[in-house]
């Protein structure tokens, strides 16, 4: 399954990346599994996405929970808690 990952704000800077295309293995079918998949890259992904760290994930521009399923061509955004206005 192909998905687009977007990173914003501090995470964009730490990951050194604003957007990437990913080909996910079939077992990575929801947000929890994707988070695990990204952590397995190690380094800053492991640190920043560790359990207990404050980050948020949106799927197709809607806030997601760990159970949110992923579909082909999903747009998945990973970002820090918002600090607007």
């Amino acid at each position, binding site marked *: 399954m192909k998905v687009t990952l977007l990173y*914003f704000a501090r995470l964009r800077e730490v990951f050194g990346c604003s957007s990437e295309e990913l080909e996910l293995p079939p077992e990575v079918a929801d947000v929890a599994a994707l988070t695990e998949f990204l952590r397995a890259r190690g380094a800053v992904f492991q640190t920043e996405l560790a359990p207990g760290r404050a980050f948020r994930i949106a799927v197709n521009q809607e806030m997601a929970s760990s159970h949110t399923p992923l579909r082909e061509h999903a747009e998945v955004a990973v970002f820090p808690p918002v600090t607007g206005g």
Partner: protein
Amino acid sequence: MTVRVQTEDFDAGAEISRLRSGNARVGAVASFIGVVRDRNDGDAVAGMTLEHYPGMTERSIEAIVEEARSRWEIIDALVVHRVGPLLPTDQIVLVVVTSSHRGEAFAACEFLMDYLKTRAPFWKKERLPEGARWVEARASDDAAAARWERS
């Protein structure tokens, strides 16, 4: 109902006039302007940059405005939020709500601001004398937004 995210400044007076113009049912116009301060948490702030998530930011604000409309008897609402580099005293955000009565206009305007601070995808990076830092989310903002949760 209008939502705009833009780098350009806005003319609050003109936006307020336009929102209520021609509607003689409007008795109350509540507005809020957020402004860049030169200090935050005790540090001197030379400026900031606001980042957003194009698409999701606009959609999430539109959803918040729709929710305000379902909770209060409001006639119209406007949200303008700037992004990009900003300096102290620059305007950041404008929320205007029109209603027949002041209680509804005030409540909806404050509700929209609380949600903009806690839910809409914006991130603030401040420029301090010792370098730039991403602002952390505030517990007080979460508390302000939690007031509006329906139990």
